[in-house]
């Protein structure tokens, strides 16, 4: 760092390195991120007794939210669910469950115990997601803390340190130290004092020093924060060797590791005790008898007076006339279901792309990670399997379910493999982090959302480009699709939100449509 750093470069540096928190605040101010709010209170009026038939297509979270709210108000709801289960992508896998992947059906043979499960879809509830939390409270769904970031978990990258694993805390402590050193050096240049008063500059510098655990000379020389090499309790602790900045920069994982605790995945996250589908069970406790399973919708016809649904059930073609229809069938499947939607609707349905997230898990014969100081959280890798999730629940029990792959962006890579190739890929990837992984696990399950029957995709993708954000055209298509058709048909689900892949979005989409229905009903009754 002999080269002088210009002020502009420093400010860019701040944005690039230290700017995560700052960027989040700025983003919230610009309404780029969902702002914290109160849970929606729905003041829905009771229906006209002659217009209270509601059909809900799909027993996913948004569909069940509608069924629950409208049944409470005296509507007569029927849920047509194509598969053998409700919940859609709220899928908890446990003993005996069918994973209904087209061409690759699997049955789960995990031990039949309450803590032996994994959440194959929705898995985390942020504390700011007040509407889904509101339903958890109302439905009596017990919650526990979900551990997302774990500083004791591992980071492994074939390009870094000869592929040897290091602890998350070693990576982040050293990374922060070097980043702080850069910032401190930049700030001490005289010309940089200009934007700040002396007091501000001192406050900033002391924060930077604390951020990176710098020595008095503003140099980073390693830190006890990364853990002790030895001692620390009854003898003085011996500091671990510093890892060179250049070595850390060989991995691209810093991007994820430094933001794992920000935004939607920032602490505190929660999960229902016993599996995410306890939320689904909570709704079904109230509206379970309203659900027809294995009812496959053949056509949706919006009429002046209501909606006509034709569906196949119990080997027979049946039809249902409803006053209102709420539809959480994925748009990419709705394209193939006969309908009379307006052309701009059909165009919007075809625009949305289906997500291809992928997860895989094993039953571990012992909770070997707990012997390695890992309790919950995630290990990160540059391998295609990307992440290992250790269960936050069942701590110190004899066994657990460990997630050995979560590809949230490009799951097609594993999706296109045979089941045995997928399993081998995860075993060999995990062995780089836990050398004895293969011997410690059994009973694999893979969930390739792109091929799951009746879903064929994970969360909807509206944006063609994540770097440029939503285009004006995309916003228009979105507004088209969420507007009711003829005040009779309402598309719902996290797919009809600007923040897909979260249960909160599914619930809020349902609630938004319910307020639209209510406005129409009040107008109709007036």
């Amino acid at each position, binding site marked *: 760092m002999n080269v002088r750093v210009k002020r502009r470069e420093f400010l860019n540096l701040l944005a690039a390195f230290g700017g995560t928190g700052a960027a989040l605040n700025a983003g919230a101010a610009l309404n780029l991120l969902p702002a914290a709010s109160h849970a929606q209170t729905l003041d829905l009026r009771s229906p006209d007794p002659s217009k209270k038939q509601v059909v809900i297509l799909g027993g996913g979270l948004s569909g069940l939210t509608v069924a629950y709210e409208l049944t409470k108000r005296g509507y007569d709801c029927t849920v047509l669910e*194509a598969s053998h289960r409700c919940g859609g992508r709220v899928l908890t896998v446990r003993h005996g469950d*069918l994973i209904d992947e087209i061409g690759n059906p699997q049955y789960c043979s995990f031990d039949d115990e309450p803590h032996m499960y994994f959440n194959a879809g929705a898995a985390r509830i942020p504390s700011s997601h007040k509407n889904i939390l509101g339903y958890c409270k109302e439905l009596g769904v017990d919650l526990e803390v979900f551990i997302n970031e774990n500083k004791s978990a591992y980071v492994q990258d074939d390009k870094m340190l000869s592929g040897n694993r290091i602890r998350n805390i070693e990576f982040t402590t050293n990374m922060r130290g070097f980043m702080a050193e850069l910032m401190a050096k930049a700030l001490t240049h005289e010309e940089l004092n200009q934007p700040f008063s002396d007091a501000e500059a001192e406050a900033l510098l002391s924060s930077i020093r604390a951020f990176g655990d710098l020595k008095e000379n503003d140099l980073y020389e390693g830190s006890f924060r990364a853990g002790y090499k030895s001692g620390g309790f009854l003898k003085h602790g011996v500091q671990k060797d510093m890892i060179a900045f250049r070595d850390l920069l060989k991995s691209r994982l810093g991007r994820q590791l430094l933001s794992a605790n920000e935004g939607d995945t920032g602490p505190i996250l929660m999960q229902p005790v016993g599996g995410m589908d306890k939320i689904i069970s909570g709704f079904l406790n109230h509206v379970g008898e309203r659900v027809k399973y294995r009812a*496959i919708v053949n*056509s949706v016809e919006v009429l002046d007076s209501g909606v006509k649904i034709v569906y196949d059930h119990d080997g027979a073609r049946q039809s249902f006339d409803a006053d209102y229809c709420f539809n959480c069938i994925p748009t990419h499947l709705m394209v193939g279901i006969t309908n009379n939607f307006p052309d701009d609707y059909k165009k919007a349905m075809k625009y949305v792309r*289906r997500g291809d997230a992928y997860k895989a898990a094993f039953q571990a014969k012992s909770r070997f990670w707990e012997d390695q100081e890992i309790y919950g959280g995630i290990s990160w890798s540059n391998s295609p399997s990307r992440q290992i999730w250790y269960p936050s629940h069942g701590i110190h029990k004899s066994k657990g379910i460990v997630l050995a792959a979560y590809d949230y962006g490009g799951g097609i890579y594993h999706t296109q493999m045979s089941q045995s190739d997928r399993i081998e890929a995860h075993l060999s990837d995990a062995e780089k982090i836990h050398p004895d992984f293969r011997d410690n696990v059994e009973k694999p399950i893979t969930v390739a959302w792109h091929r799951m029957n009746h879903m064929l995709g994970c969360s909807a993708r509206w944006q063609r480009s994540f770097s440029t954000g939503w285009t004006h055209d995309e916003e228009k298509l979105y507004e088209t699709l969420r507007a009711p058709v003829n005040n009779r048909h309402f598309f719902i689900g996290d797919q009809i939100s600007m923040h897909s892949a979260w249960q909160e979005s599914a619930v809020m989409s349902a609630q938004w449509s319910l307020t639209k229905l209510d406005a129409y009903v009040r107008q109709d009754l007036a």
Partner: protein
Amino acid sequence: MPNLISRAIRRRYGKPALLITFALASAICVSAPNEPVNDRYCKTCHGSDGRGNEAIQAPILAGMEEWYLIRQLKNYRGKVRGFHPSDERGIAMQAMANSLSDESIRDIVGWIKTWEYTPPDATVDGDKAEGKKLYASCAACHREDASGNEAIGAPPLAYQNDWYLVKQLENFTNGYRGTHENDIFGQQMVTMVKQLKDDTGIRNVVSYITSLRSD
């Protein structure tokens, strides 16, 4: 580890009859244990009564000739089709057909026969006059009216989704289909598509083919 998979498959063909009762009896359980499955997955991708789904790129099945359906299902099963890494849709279909028994194929084809054909919307815009000239060489096998010719293994074309015909012609052009040594008919297509020259030629000939429908 492979033993675990075969065990799972054996479980699949276990004795599900008793367990169906569980599924029906329980409203509160999100999922019943050991839910039975069968191979009738078609409509999830291919849409209402197999009328095709452009968003999934899954073509019309209703109205397709039985002999052609059987041949293609067997081609997929044997990885004669759906093998190329760039043929994403073909790979998905291959995975579906991979474990089908002959009995299952007969069952599926018999099921498809019960679906009513509905003409698909036109989505491809091309020069039909130019397409007609290009089609002259296709007609030898697929007939003048694109109704197909079972005797020489040429399927009907006129009633198919136009976007699917485009995709398949592109697949033949790019070597994603028709390059397997056992794909006798596909190999002929690889030779024939060269006459279409480019994307414009493909669009022109497809728009002509689907104009031959007498819906």
